[in-house]
């Protein structure tokens, strides 16, 4: 029995796309690179101490004093360990892929909540995206977007967008039927119903999805460094390849601090707004 030539098919599809859609990929590449660079530039603009103070204020406003203290001490440690620039680069990558995930994921989630056919097509694709080993995306990403931070963002988005889509869908479907009915009964248009009733009520669930997405894209920083994305991931990768145990631990610790601060901040900022 002859082997089904899946590998050949994918190969030629990727080559065809790279040949014919290069204008599109160049445009996407330009936009993403600009956004990442801008965010990184913005974060590196103030002195680290000032950045830490601002972070402290935001963390305090978002909730509690312990969070503010932890954020400030954590980032001071990062500054002390001399990983500041790399951390800011990684932060820019995470925030960019988070933004892209929200911008794409929320509308797709809304679509799947409204349309059963769309849901039936999209949900299996999400399963596919999440379970396919992330390394596999890296190659086509490099083919389309060359080396650097852009394919890193793309790979992060593919890997981390599913929770935003799924939980947006769930959030909207969870809105009690009688509230949707009430909104209809008063003569809302579809947009009014979505923006005045469904989305506000879906917000807690949706934000849980966004939080998950941010965490997942942070977990991609090390993998992204393998294709040339600068940042703390690159430090981890270098330490691992050079068997520098101590340095590897330091860089890993920075990733942990970043993860905890991002997680608690993204959870709390929404809760504060709700109050």
């Amino acid at each position, binding site marked *: 029995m002859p082997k089904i030539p899946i590998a050949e098919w994918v190969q030629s599809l990727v080559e065809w796309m790279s040949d014919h859609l290069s204008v599109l990929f160049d445009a996407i590449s330009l936009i993403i690179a600009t956004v990442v660079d801008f965010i990184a530039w913005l974060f590196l603009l103030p002195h680290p101490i000032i950045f830490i103070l601002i972070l402290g204020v935001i963390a305090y406003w978002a909730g509690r004093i312990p969070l503010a203290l932890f954020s400030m001490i954590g980032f001071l440690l990062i500054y002390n360990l001399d990983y500041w620039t790399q951390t800011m680069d990684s932060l820019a990558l995470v925030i960019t892929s988070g933004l892209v995930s929200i911008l794409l994921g929320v509308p797709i989630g809304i679509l799947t909540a409204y349309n059963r056919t769309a849901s039936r097509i999209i949900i299996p694709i999400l399963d596919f995206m999440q379970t396919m080993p992330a390394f596999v995306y890296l190659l086509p990403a490099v083919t389309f977007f060359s080396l650097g931070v852009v394919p890193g963002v793309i790979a992060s988005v593919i890997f981390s967008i599913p929770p935003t889509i799924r939980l947006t869908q769930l959030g909207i479907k969870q809105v009690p039927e009688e509230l949707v009915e009430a909104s209809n009964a008063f003569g809302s248009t579809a947009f009014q119903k979505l923006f005045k009733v469904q989305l506000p*009520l879906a917000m807690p669930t949706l934000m849980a999805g966004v939080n998950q997405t941010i965490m997942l894209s942070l977990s991609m920083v090390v993998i992204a460094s393998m294709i040339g994305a600068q940042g703390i991931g690159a430090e981890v990768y270098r330490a691992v390849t050079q068997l520098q145990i101590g340095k590897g631990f330091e860089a890993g610790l920075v990733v942990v601090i970043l993860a905890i601060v991002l997680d608690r901040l993204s959870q709390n900022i929404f809760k504060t707004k709700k109050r």
Partner: protein
Amino acid sequence: MAILEIKDVIKLFGPNQEQGVALLKQGYTKQQLAKEKQITVGVNRVNLDIQQGEIFVIMGLSGSGKSTLVRMFNRLIEPTSGQILVHGKDLMKMNKEQLRHVRRKTISMVFQKFALFPHRSVIENVEYGLEIQKVDKKTRREKALQSLELVGLKGWGDKKPDELSGGMQQRVGLARALANDPEVLLMDEAFSALDPLIRRDMQDELLELQLRMKKTIIFITHDLDEALRIGDRIALMREGSVVQVGTPEEILMQPANRFVERFVEDVDLSKVLTASHVMRRPETITLDRGPRTALQLMRERGISNLFVIDRSKHLLGVITAEDASNAYKHHQSLQDILITDGPKVTPERLIGELFEITSSAKVPLAVVDSDNRLLGVIVRGALLGALAGDIDFKEVTDHA
């Protein structure tokens, strides 16, 4: 004038609905359709005319199709066939835009589980209907405050719905529906989720509001007492069909079939029957007659009291046989022995409220109209008889 006309409306669930409609019109029953064609009949050929300004109650047990029916009045549920005319215009032929207009301006709805938006404050909930019509902020806030005051929730606007009790939440639901100033209010089991006492208060308040507003109210309920209390007319539904439409009295006194009869069997008559149902023709005399004539009259009729009226039947008072006999001996006139502070009631009073009055009074209860004209008399025996079911309802309704 009919504000809402429902013509031959059918709602089916399941496959082959077109065929189902045809079969139903050929006389297939609900059971046959379910068994042979797997079609569920939600609403079966309903015809109703709802008049401007009335409280029209649609009553039935759960699963009788009443909620489905009422949701077709604003097309939250699409009828399978039939016509729904609002001010003579067919709702079924309207496009989305026109339908929205009807929902915004003409028909508002109050829901069983309140359906308040939990992320909005009370006042923002009340404003919702105006907000989506893009009424400017100042105007809609004003109207919302008025509406909130109307339902007795002045000063509660900044609370969140979950900070309010059930009764208060439903007032917010009512205020939200009223803020649009609709002509028709659809109230879907609006008070069913409330405690009995609160429910009773809400019914009273709704009736009071209605006196001022004169809206057309379509009220869904499974509670017969509620239906009898607030309905001007009642439609009884069973298995998707309307079994009987009539005033509360007609439903009680002339049940259309066994089903209605069974339904009304357990009704507490003291809360339904009124003075007009149990009163009898009064024996009367005019004031210019003497005590002797009065005595003679009482002896003839075998009674011990006479009502005294003037020429246009206005009630002046009552005299007793004992007083009349004394007056005869002492050469007094009827005027001298007239009891003017005897009890009197209007014909609408429920008989449940009459027991106390009759038991504390020495003379029979007079029933008078608003001009104090004597309509009838109520004796204790008749009151008890009525509660025991010993009353010819048909005859009574003919009189009333």
